């Protein structure tokens, strides 16, 4: 039961970086929305701009050398790009929280786990030290850590990767944020631990009605966790649809190529399909459609080499940015938004 208005609306955002060789634009005219309680997955390979997009929501891009070139990031109707730094600090950790790929580099090695959680709590909530301790204990218990009171005095290096990620989640959730940004939260973890962490995130989301921006390159993780998906390539969002529509009917040639080149469990392949060539680096993007040098659907069409397509609603609830997508020519250019939420995945705990 999602509300009508999106919780977070990213509209035509472009981010540039000043380098010695001129300005590069790793995020270009990007738009997407997340509704309360929804999981939106931003998926793509290295260098597509997904991490920079995520960091930009919390204004964590260092400026300089970064620059917000255009666009709005509206959170609950307020444009975050127009807030002062002190107003932004009230949003970070409280309304919007973030967890990262490498918990060891995100946790402070010289402070105990308890100190780090309590710091987050006391920054945003007016509570006494003993109240903060109880909140920290509850937060650790919520993320499935046994014996939470004893764990408060443990240091990050004394814990395994999976435990550290749980601590990060506990810290992020201590102030009950409405949106959690998770940047490749399980990429560095073993697959059985990944399953535990993703299950934990789903459970916490359900309990708290929390929305999640999930950044990943793993289409399996997307399939199991996302309600809505945005596919990014070379600074653009090239496809946006609910998860079933994306997997049933991938429309952009890059998305199709990704699906085809993935080895799937239970399927024996003779030879894997590939997307020829490499992802171009920002600053060295080709003219026209950024995917065209690698695209097999081009049919030698000149428009692909000259004009960069934009994200259009080519079918109801399905956006794609490709000149050859059926329906592209007559489709409208609108900010993608979908209120879709799926029925939860059945899990059996062993």
């Amino acid at each position, binding site marked *: 039961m999602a509300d009508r208005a999106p919780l977070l609306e990213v509209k035509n955002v472009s981010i540039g970086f000043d380098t010695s060789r001129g300005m590069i634009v790793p995020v270009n005219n990007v738009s997407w929305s997340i509704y309360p309680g929804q999981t939106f997955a931003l998926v793509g*390979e*290295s260098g597509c701009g997904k991490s920079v997009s995520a960091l930009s929501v919390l204004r964590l891009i260092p400026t300089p050398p970064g620059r917000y070139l255009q666009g709005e990031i509206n959170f609950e109707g307020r444009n975050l790009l127009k807030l002062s730094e002190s107003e932004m600090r009230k949003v970070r950790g409280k309304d919007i929280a973030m967890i990262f790929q490498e918990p060891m580099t995100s946790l402070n090695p010289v402070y105990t786990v308890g100190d780090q959680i309590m710091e987050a709590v006391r920054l945003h909530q007016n509570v006494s030290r003993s109240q903060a301790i109880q909140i920290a204990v509850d937060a650790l218990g919520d993320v499935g850590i*046994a*014996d939470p009171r004893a764990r408060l005095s443990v240091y990050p290096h004394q814990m*395994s*990767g*999976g*435990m550290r990620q749980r601590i990060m989640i506990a810290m992020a959730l201590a102030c009950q944020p409405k949106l959690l940004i998770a940047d490749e939260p399980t990429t560095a973890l*073993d*697959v*059985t*631990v*990944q*399953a*535990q962490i*993703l*299950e934990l995130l789903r459970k916490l989301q359900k309990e708290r009605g929390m929305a999640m921006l999930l950044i990943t*390159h*793993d*289409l*399996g*993780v*997307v*399939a*199991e966790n*996302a309600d809505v998906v945005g596919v990014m390539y070379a600074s653009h969002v090239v496809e946006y649809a609910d*998860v*079933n529509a994306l*997997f049933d009917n991938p429309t952009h040639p890059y998305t199709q*190529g*990704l*699906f085809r*080149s*993935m*080895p*799937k*469990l*239970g399927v*024996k*392949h003779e*030879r*894997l*399909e*590939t*997307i*020829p060539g*490499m*992802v171009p680096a920002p600053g060295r993007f080709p003219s026209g459609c950024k995917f065209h040098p690698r695209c097999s659907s081009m049919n030698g069409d000149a428009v692909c080499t000259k004009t960069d397509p934009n994200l259009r609603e080519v079918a109801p609830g399905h956006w794609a940015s490709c000149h050859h997508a059926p329906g592209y020519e007559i489709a409208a250019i609108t900010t993608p938004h979908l209120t879709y939420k*799926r029925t939860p*995945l*059945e*899990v*059996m*705990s*062993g």
Partner: protein
Amino acid sequence: MSTAATATQELNRSITTAPLVQVRDLKTYFPIKKGLLARTVGFVKAVDGVSFDVQAGKTLGLVGESGCGKTTVGRSLLRLIPATGGQVLYRGEDFFAHSGERLRRLRQKMQIIFQDPVGSLNPRMTVGNIIGEPLEVHGLAKGSDKRDLVVSLLQRVGLDPSYQSRYPHEFSGGQRQRIGIARAIALSPDFIVCDEPVSALDVSIQSQVLNLLNDLQQERNIAYLFIAHNLAVVEHFSHEVAVMYLGRIVEKANSVDLYRDPKHPYTVSLLSAVPEPNPRPTKKRIVLKGEIPSPSNPPTGCHFHPRCPLTRTLAANHNAAESTEVKTSGETFRVMNRCKVELPVLEVKSAESGHCAACHFAD
């Protein structure tokens, strides 16, 4: 040798092709030292009695999670790390027993490709030198012959010959991995240990590199020990697969059988944990409780017993005398006595396919 003996040998060879590489009871222990005098107080049993065969021109996949020992197996096998015990036979010869020139000659035939395309290439050497160095060191080619070989190797792995004068940092991860492959095949080995060769690469590049490795295997009859944690990649690429947990092999079967009919409870959970790229899941996910134990302090008996769903189910359905209580990670539950006390042996569970598992209760 008499003609009769030679004939017998020929006959034997034609009946059963001996494996190219045979590993028997390989053990690699790392001492734990404590105190001012650095006394050895215990061992991390990273590899604890591992045995397998690799057939010529075929791929054995080795999978498992952190701490299972798969990387240590690859390095101990090639003597990059000294093994503590066990035997490695290459074409019937005891690889651990050799030294000097004989060892050097054998080493030409057994190469390695590493996971980290950044760390495994010397940043101060040009690509041409990186690939050409093994040829010179082993006295296989010099001067213009060497340069010609380097050019043909670069072309074979899909890189432009002009790259030979460039440095590793100028290339992407996928290209650096190709350079590593060119270096590994320079000496025409017939066995290559591939230690997570595509884990650091994007999906679309991964498939390019895997196809290249596959083509090289077909062309040059190279056997691979393919170490990886991505189960779908291993399934695609391997003929046979061995699953490791805390230093031991817990299941071994040909690739099709392992994925279709996993017998060890750990393998079942591992396969179930892989996220399926299907938004309407066809399988029920089994989420294991607890963490992977540290190899410096493994559980008794079957290493997997604290997390094993099978032993818990059995304990609940058998009378109390056959099970025992376990307390770990804040949980208390019962497991079968045998699982807690007795180390399961890797034994054949299905005679016709040779499917093995190390479990007291799997069939």
